């Protein structure tokens, strides 16, 4: 029997593993893109297709980066999908039925998003309801409001072309607007979290709320901020979705919830060990979008698309986490 439990990894192996731990998820994304490019050399690796993927990913990414803020401050926000649905209806309703000018309608709806986020936050910080229940409850109420506002009937007739151009147009160097908005939102949130003093407080609150509080940080206010940003991003997604669909439709945005969560949690394995951060979420959303697009272009049958999508999620994170756990063993 050997008692020497030392199994020392060579420094080079260790460095490689650490690299894998840090960049595994990104490597996974890169490997996936290369694989799809080889499998569908004509259709996949084109500028047009990449622009499409980004365009398609942009709404999910906006809602997911917003959700990231809620998650960084240590809470879950399950209301984002339902909120996006409601806001899509609301913005078309305000434009079509109430005749508000488009910018005013958008401003009103963004404000409504902030208010809903704030309400989530107040229920969590003041009444101290667990955020899962609070945001699920608020989300259910929002679904009810969407029904009440539209009686379940999509708002279609009379949506002005200018509103559709919000999502369909490209006002900046021919880049689709959705992509521009997405980049702007992600960059702003990244700057906020990583590069401002307020961002340090945001990070501290999620990491150890008790310690943050004793360090003089107003934990509840920071949490409110996180929820509010999440709410505003959900409403922005709802507005763009309505513009994309050309209508306000109840439950159109509901399915963003799971996608956004997948992106956020994928992102937490990227670059850092299990911490949520904006850049990670962006990469997570890209993995999901490229995975979906590539599998589709390759033309796999629906059932194997599901299986491969599931596998992509696990492998993308697994690369990082396996590297990390071997390196640290």
């Amino acid at each position, binding site marked *: 029997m050997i008692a020497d439990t030392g199994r020392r990894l060579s420094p080079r192996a260790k460095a490689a593993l650490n690299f894998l731990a840090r960049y595994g998820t990104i490597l996974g994304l890169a490997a996936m893109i290369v694989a799809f490019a080889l499998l*569908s050399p*004509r*259709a*996949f690796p*084109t500028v*047009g*297709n990449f622009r*499409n*993927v980004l*365009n*398609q990913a942009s709404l999910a990414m906006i809602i997911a980066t917003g959700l990231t803020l809620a998650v960084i401050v240590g809470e879950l926000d399950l209301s984002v999908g339902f909120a996006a649905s409601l806001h899509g209806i609301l913005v078309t309703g305000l434009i079509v039925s109430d005749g508000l000018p488009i910018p005013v309608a958008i401003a009103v709806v963004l404000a409504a998003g902030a208010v809903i986020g704030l309400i989530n936050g107040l229920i969590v910080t003041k009444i101290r309801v667990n955020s899962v229940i609070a945001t699920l409850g608020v989300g259910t109420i929002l679904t009810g409001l*969407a*029904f009440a506002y*539209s*009686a*379940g*009937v*999509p*708002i*279609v*007739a009379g*949506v002005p072309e200018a509103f*559709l151009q919000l*999502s*369909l147009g490209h006002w900046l160097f021919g880049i*689709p607007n*959705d992509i521009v908005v997405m980049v702007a939102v992600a960059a702003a949130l990244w700057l906020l979290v990583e590069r401002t003093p307020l961002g340090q407080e945001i990070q501290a609150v999620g990491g150890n709320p008790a310690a943050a509080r004793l360090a003089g940080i107003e934990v509840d206010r920071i949490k409110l901020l996180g929820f509010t940003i999440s709410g505003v991003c959900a409403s922005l997604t709802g507005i763009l*979705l309505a513009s*994309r*669909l*050309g*209508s306000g*439709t*109840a*439950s*159109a945005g*509901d*399915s*963003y919830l799971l996608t956004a969560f997948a992106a956020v949690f994928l992102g937490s394995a990227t670059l850092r060990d299990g911490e949520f951060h904006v850049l990670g979420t962006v990469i997570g959303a890209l993995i999901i979008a490229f995975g*979906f*697009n*590539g*599998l*589709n*272009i390759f*033309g796999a*049958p*629906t059932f194997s698309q599901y299986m491969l999508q599931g596998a992509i999620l696990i492998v993308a994170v697994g690369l990082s986490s396996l590297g990390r756990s071997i390196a640290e063993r």
Partner: protein
Amino acid sequence: DAPLLGIVSISATEANNARYIKGATAAAKEDGWKVSVIDASGSADQANAAMQNFAGLGAGAIIDMVFPWSSIGAGLAAAKSAGIPVVTWGGGLGGSIAATNGSGAPVAQPVIDRMVADLGGSGDVLALTYHTGEVCRNREVLLDGIVGKSPAIHVTRNEVRIPGYFEDGAQYANAWLASHPAGGGRLAIWGCWDDPAIGAIGALRQQGRDDVKVYGVNGNAQAIENIRNGHMTATAWEDSYTEGYRMVKLLAAIRAAGANWTPRAAEVPAVLVTQQNVAQFIKDHPDALGK
């Protein structure tokens, strides 16, 4: 006391469901029913629970919307033992179902014919399907039958989810378009109902593609609007308002006949709406735009 009419909808927010409910409610008002609508949000289990609840309430009749009769076993059993007739819209005729309409496969026929004609016998079709729904499955069988006669038409199939059909429609279209660039041949996208096709239209417009014809079925307000705007090629307008209305009107006869009732389908013919006839159609059916 007014008898209770229980309506269980797979998704009361879906446009066609909403129109059917409107029609049913209008007829119910005339015939003195009290209406209660439950949104099962896609969950068969909740639909069964809602039917059990209606049975417990001693409802006069239950309308099941879209859940196939095969997935409401417990609800049907409860209704049967309470002596309550159950009719379905799009759920098919089977089990102890008394009547059905909106079965909808035949509705799709003119649209599919039109699509095959537009393709001129060759081209690529993206079919957005939903196998779990009986209606959609039957429409797909119809599609296969018609397209099967033109071997030069190649069909790519993708399953959409409920909810999530807009997003799925858009994403599948997006990827399919990448491997079907403009100028390569005639292209068409077919939704087994309008909503996935409308999702696909979003993708088309974002890519600035106007070489792809888009076909839906049901003729919901958004589809009519898209046809009017030139983004959709054709749909079959299923007059779900009238379907709902007539189904409720039929309930009196079902109740009167009791055990002697013979289950039957009571379909309402559909109207093919295309860019050519859309203006006239809207004149004839102003309510089709959801107003």
